């Protein structure tokens, strides 16, 4: 089924501050990584899409086979800092959310158990949410976002608090769902979206500055990513002069990763760029 989420000229102001500035996007099935620094406007844009904030200008449409469809009933959403009822158990919470979200009579107790299994929470189903770690709450948030198998999944910082194993599990879960869903994933953990995102949307000061595939974006920093083996005393010099995307301590000293159009030093050598390098380049060099 042909699905399109169309954002046209979305603008949102808080007093004099323009949080989202004339944003237009056309999203189809697949994962979209929404990247931006803190305060760039990611969360505001997401809140507008899910109806928690009202846009000052512009409109949002969801089209299925070119036919306008209700957007909000097709959205699954995980907020940035989700808070759930602490006295509920995980199972009770999901049962409650299913009773609110779903009119499907087949969505019974077994359905919520499936969701708990999917997010690796089944063995904690009878534990109170108040006793959950941040990562477990995040997984529970993901589980509630998946109720009703939504066509659009919007996840704001979904991997915050998840350990490495959970993040890999989460990435695989998202990848497996990407074929028939529009998934927007706002994160500051770039590696979470680098390999699963169909396109990366970069937002800065409320404006979309880039929207392209990872490969195309990386082409922009090709032949600009350098590594230099150096000593501790030279680190500050490089930090002052260049955009540094990583400093790695090794047995023989330090390896500094620099994004620069010119070769930063004689012993610098070119390396294959990644999305993190691109982001550093965009948010610092530009």
């Amino acid at each position, binding site marked *: 089924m042909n699905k399109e989420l169309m954002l046209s000229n979305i603008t949102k102001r808080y007093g004099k501050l323009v949080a989202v500035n004339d944003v237009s996007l056309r999203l189809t099935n697949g994962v979209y990584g929404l990247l931006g620094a803190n305060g760039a406007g990611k969360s505001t844009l997401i809140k507008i899409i899910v109806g928690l904030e009202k846009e000052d200008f512009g409109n949002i449409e969801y089209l299925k086979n070119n036919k306008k469809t209700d957007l*909000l009933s097709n959205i699954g*959403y995980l907020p940035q800092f989700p*808070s759930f009822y602490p006295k509920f158990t995980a199972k009770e919470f999901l049962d*409650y*959310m299913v*009773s609110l979200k779903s009119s499907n009579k087949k969505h019974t107790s077994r359905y919520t158990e499936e969701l708990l299994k999917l997010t690796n929470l089944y063995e904690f189903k009878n534990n109170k949410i108040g006793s959950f770690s941040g990562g477990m709450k995040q997984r529970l948030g993901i589980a509630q976002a998946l109720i009703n198998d939504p066509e659009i999944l919007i996840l704001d910082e979904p991997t915050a608090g998840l350990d490495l194993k959970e993040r890999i599990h989460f990435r695989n879960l998202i990848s497996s769902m990407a074929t028939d869903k529009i998934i927007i994933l706002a994160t500051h953990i770039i590696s979470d979206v680098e390999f699963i995102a169909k396109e990366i949307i970069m937002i800065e000061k409320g404006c979309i500055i880039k929207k392209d595939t990872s490969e195309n974006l990386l082409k922009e920093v090709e032949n600009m990513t350098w590594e230099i083996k150096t000593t501790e005393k030279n680190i500050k010099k490089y930090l002052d002069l260049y955009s540094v995307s990583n400093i790695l301590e090794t047995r023989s000293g330090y390896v500094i990763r620099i994004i620069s159009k010119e070769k930063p030093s004689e012993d610098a050598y070119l390396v294959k760029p990644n999305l993190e390098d691109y982001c550093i380049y965009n948010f610092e060099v530009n």
Partner: protein
Amino acid sequence: MFLEFKKSFFRPYIIVITLILMLLNIFFFTNRYAYLTLKSTETVNEYMYFYPMVEGKIEEEKVHKIFELKNENLEKYNSGILSYKDKNGNTLYSHANIITLQTLIEDLEYTYLYPLNMEKIVNQSKENLKFFDTEKHIYEINKNKKIIKDYSNRYIPKFGLTRGYELLFNYKISSLVLLFILILPLSSLFAEEKENKYYQIFIGEKVKKRCIKFKIISSYIFIFVLSLIFYIMDIFCFNRIWPMNEIFNPIYSLKLYKNTFLNTSIFSFLIINFLFMLIAYIFFGTLFMIVSLNSKKVFVSLVINYIILISVIILSDFINIPFNPFNLLNNKDMFKGFYVKRILSYHIYEPWYYLIFSLIFIFLLMCVLKRSVKKW
């Protein structure tokens, strides 16, 4: 729905506070109230000692025996016998017996003479009717017709223990206790969702509406269940203090309702009384919910609701408007007599008049609630 109920109302602090206040009500407030009204529980015990002799249908033989007993005790008292033992070995006090038997005789008289007293009222109304008929005074004609219709052929079939019912209908502390309990969960019902940002996961109108619907329905269920528990609890408490029976006797077998226009049984009146109180609780509950819907902090909602409740309690004595929610809670006076209010050209008994206004006010409150829901 059950989960919403559990989330909003099955909370440790609500359960603990409710239990504490319930126990206080059972073991302290009702007892204290009964003591202030009766002065001593011995009166009840003595009354209960003599009551079996006259219980049931009033017969001359039974009345005669009570009079005899009173005279016997009077003679004993006059000859200096202050206490004596009955055939079962119980110690009886002649002076206390005289007072108790006098009370019993008064109660018997009330029951026995009730048809005669009502007949007098009916006859008086018949005469009034003739007079106003010639004067063409429509209001008085209708009023007297109503009196004749409602008060004719009245009698009390059995002599029962009615004083416990009177204590129950006069007692209003549990209503106040209940209102103070209701404020706790209802103030946080919506405000808590805002304060903790739980609402962020309710995406779309349908989900939001369903959540609000669950909350409102479970609140009304909570109000109904808790008020029923408190009411039944009060009945048991007063039954323990002063046993009650003959629940299917007419309501006018209670001296408190001697002149009531109602021709229902005590049992039906218990239901009417409960429904009136329930409507008042629904009124206050809806008010508390509206405040919660418009508050972003639970504390603010709680404070506003307590201010509203305390203000209404204080002002209720001074407000003389058709709808005063406390009239419904303290409804005993409404049913005491033949009080008629006029709406356009219709005459309506005062309780029904207040009931109509209350329902109109509740309807208006629900409209405000609906408006607040849209903004939530």
